[in-house]
């Protein structure tokens, strides 16, 4: 084989590859263009807007870091951050534990297993706005079903949606209803845990509690990590349920601002006050907060997440 034929072959392969690449890019171009125009551009321009005074109808006016300075002096920024952290710690974290608990139950070998699994997943299918509206009926302070039950048990009946001390617990209560996806994902992870581990542990005399902490929990820890990170991000974008519960565009934070979450406050700045500069600054601060939290979770994950085949 002469050097020139090798060269020609190589060229042929290279140009065929290049052609394939171009065709591939062409087919992907609707998505690429969509991403560039509707995602990347807005993301980048929002950073510029965060440095301006921009109210939509006239051109943005550059103000440097003023929006950020105002934000860190804004008591409602801290209030919304507090409410968001509250719903994350007392809402999302227990709900994650709850979905694991339900997944463990659903993983037991009982009759009618698939029916139970369906039942626990069903509420997740209902759109968030619809289920929030439904829960507003259930949690009605005067005639709601939840309070009817509490009354028949002789317990106190809070004004769930009107009392600032009870609005967040009301949202958290509703959240437990929608843990179906987390449960199904945990269930999938549980079914991946090798049976031999449990058999070996049983032979060694490990009880159920030990089996859970020494085998189950470490085995499904990658799933916990995944749910923790996606859940944290979702929790910091908490919006729909609170907006529906507040039920008043002029008082988006609900009674005493108790349902003013970070995303609802951002929405208020952007669409009630048309203060796009301030809202953009809030969006970037949110990005930094979520980024830092995600990095922290990843850093600590080395200590408690185990992947199959690794130590």
């Amino acid at each position, binding site marked *: 084989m002469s050097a020139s034929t090798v060269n*020609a072959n190589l060229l042929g392969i290279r140009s065929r590859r290049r*052609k394939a690449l171009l065709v591939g890019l062409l087919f992907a171009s609707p998505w690429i263009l969509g991403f560039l125009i509707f995602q990347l551009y807005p993301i980048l321009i929002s950073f510029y807007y965060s440095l301006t005074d921009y109210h939509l*109808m006239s051109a943005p006016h550059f103000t440097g870091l003023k929006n950020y300075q105002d934000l860190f002096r804004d008591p409602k920024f801290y209030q919304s951050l507090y409410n968001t952290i509250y719903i994350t710690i007392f809402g999302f974290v227990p709900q994650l534990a709850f979905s694991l608990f339900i997944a463990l139950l659903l993983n037991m070998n009982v009759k009618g297993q698939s029916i139970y699994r369906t039942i626990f997943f069903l509420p997740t299918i209902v759109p968030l706005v619809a289920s929030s509206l439904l829960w507003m009926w259930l949690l*009605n302070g005067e005639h709601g079903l939840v309070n009817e039950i509490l009354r028949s048990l002789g317990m106190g009946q809070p*004004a769930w*949606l009107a009392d600032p001390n009870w609005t967040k617990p009301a949202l958290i209560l509703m959240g437990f209803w929608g843990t179906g996806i987390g449960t199904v994902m945990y269930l999938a992870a549980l079914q991946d845990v090798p049976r031999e581990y449990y058999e070996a542990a049983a032979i060694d005399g490990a009880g159920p509690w030990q089996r859970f902490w020494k085998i189950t929990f470490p085995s499904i820890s990658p799933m916990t990590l995944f749910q923790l990170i996606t859940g944290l991000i979702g929790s910091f974008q908490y919006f729909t349920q609170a907006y529906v519960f507040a039920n008043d565009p002029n008082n988006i934070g609900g009674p005493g601002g108790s349902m003013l979450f970070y995303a609802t406050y951002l929405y208020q700045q952007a669409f009630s006050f048309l203060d796009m500069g301030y809202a953009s600054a809030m969006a970037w601060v949110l990005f930094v907060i979520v980024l830092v939290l995600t990095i922290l979770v990843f850093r600590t994950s080395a200590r408690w997440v185990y992947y199959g085949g690794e130590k």
Partner: protein
Amino acid sequence: MEKGVCNVKSRWLKAASVAMVGSISTFGLVACGNGGGGNNTGNSGGTVEITFWHPWTAADQGPINAVVDEFNKTHKDVHVTAIGNQNNQKQTIALAGGSPPDIILTASTNIIPWAGQGAIEPLDSDIKQSNFSTAQFIPGLMTDLEYNGHTYALPYSVGIESALLYNKKDFQAAGIKSPPKTLNELYADAQKLTKRDSAGNITQIGFMPDFPWFDPVFWPLVFGGKFYDPAAKQVTPTDPANIQALEYERKFYQLYGANQMNKFKSGFGKLGTPNDPLVTGQLAMEMGWDYTDAQYRGDNGPIGVAPFPYPDGHPELAGAGLMGSDAVFIPAKSKHKQAAWEFLQWMVGEKPQILFSKEGNSIPSVTAALTDPSLVDDPKMKVMDPFFKMASSHNLGAFPASTYAAKYAQALIDEGQKVLLGQESAAAAMAQVKQQIQPLVGQGN
């Protein structure tokens, strides 16, 4: 060989890029088609076609359609097409997008913020050329519509919140002969009109200071409060009257208990229906707008109307309350400003406004119309009669319009609610508002 491939490739690329450019320019054409829509409605045989946006939905647009029809019948040079259901959001988007209609009706509170952004055409030269006088309007209405010495809009139908509405049966049952005249009487009557069951739950409530909503403007006005001092360029949420107003509202929260009251409130039916708490008598007294439960008022209706009580010892504050109007303006990017002005000037006139008021039970913005026999002597308008009288009170006021008004009002709501709940003193809450809002003054924010 390599050259050939390259050619194929470049043909491919060319085809692809042509396809892409083609599709992009199609988007461009579509966009142009939308933007240029106004041009289709240009001159046709000497008649200028203009588009008029208003926020009323199909159920409520009868009155405005009657007015537009009347204009089209009597005018040959301009033809108006009215488009309803164009709410705040749609108006904002159209103004921001640069393709607004020729003329828009909106809430008066939008005018100054939008004018501050350059989205509204000043009416000064039109007013001057047409010898039009804004003095014909009810005093005070123009303050929301003027900014930096320019007039940006004219007031249309007026809303007034200065009445005490009450359930006549509840009054009879409690042995109350006439509605309260002062705020102390209101408080005393509210106690007489409240009932509780054996467990202490409220079953009928006399008065709620924040129903149908917490009103951060009405209450200070009742006490003669002020929101802004133009001389000092200072917002004045800490005005003593504003603080008294919150303390007075707080008294009802202390009387009933916030949770008791809010729980009872969550059982209320829909406003303006037979389940409206004021109609059913669950609520005995309510602060009322001219439109509140209109169909249940009058001699035979279950609801009576009285002027809202004034602070004890201050009869000079009688008739105080909140007044606002709809406003009609011409966007800076309107394509037919002259024709739009012709329609605007006509529609805010006395006769068209009386037509509108009679069709829709509303209050006209022209002072002379308030006593016009064709309006006030119409038996159909009897339920509006008390409000036509209230409309000429000199104690009616409004929240001062500004570019930061929405944030100011929101701060008053947020902090005011904390006072009602007992989380903060009225003085501390209003000081907090001052601290939040004062930096925005004069900033063009």
